[in-house]
């Protein structure tokens, strides 16, 4: 996941690298997503997340589009 100065620079980067645009979040959205995603990573009890738990974290962050679907 890369950091851009603004939306316009993402378009330039995608065009120059011939890549499709993925999902774009504001820095504040990513900050809020980081909190439930990472808060307990140093705990002995953290053994990863089930797909259901991942889906719940995304849902709580308002990420409900197909991009965030957990099924492969």
């Amino acid at each position, binding site marked *: 996941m*890369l*950091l851009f100065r603004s939306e316009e620079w*993402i378009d330039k980067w995608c065009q120059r690298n011939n*890549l499709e645009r*993925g999902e*774009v979040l504001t820095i*504040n959205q990513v900050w809020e997503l*980081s909190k439930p995603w990472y808060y307990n990573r140093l705990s*002995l009890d953290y053994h990863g997340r089930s797909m259901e738990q991942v889906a719940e974290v995304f849902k709580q962050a308002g990420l409900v589009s197909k991009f*965030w679907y957990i099924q492969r």
Partner: protein
Amino acid sequence: MINDSLLWQVRHFVYNHFADTTLPPSVDEAARHFNISTEEASALYKELHNRHAFFLEPDMPSIRMAWPFSAIPTDFKVHANDKTYYANCAWDMLGIPVVLHADAVIEARFTESNELVQLEIKNGNIALAAVPGGEDAALSKLRVHFPLPFARWYDDLVFT
């Protein structure tokens, strides 16, 4: 046969070693810490890699990523607890202060425009500390691009 209790103790050791030293433990360090053979420690590292607990370099039991920490320098540098860490990506640079439960100053490079930006995490809030030559720069304009849908993140972790 993998000892599940030991497996998660190794994961815990790796992450806390990263937090304490900014670097992952080698497989030899893990073997010494748990008083097991290098072969056993290597097998546990591989199992944790297979379970996506961390990510090994190709063909060797050396840790490249233990999210949000990176074992190699990147464009996402995080200063916290009087140490300097490297994050794997723009999401992980925000994950490091969360993992450490600490304030942080983040130095990152914008992709494409190639400018350095400094962000500050303080008391659970994020602020733009410095961006060169940018009258139009604002925290609200910054964006993080997720190139692949979640279902494909583990296909190519370096690209993701």
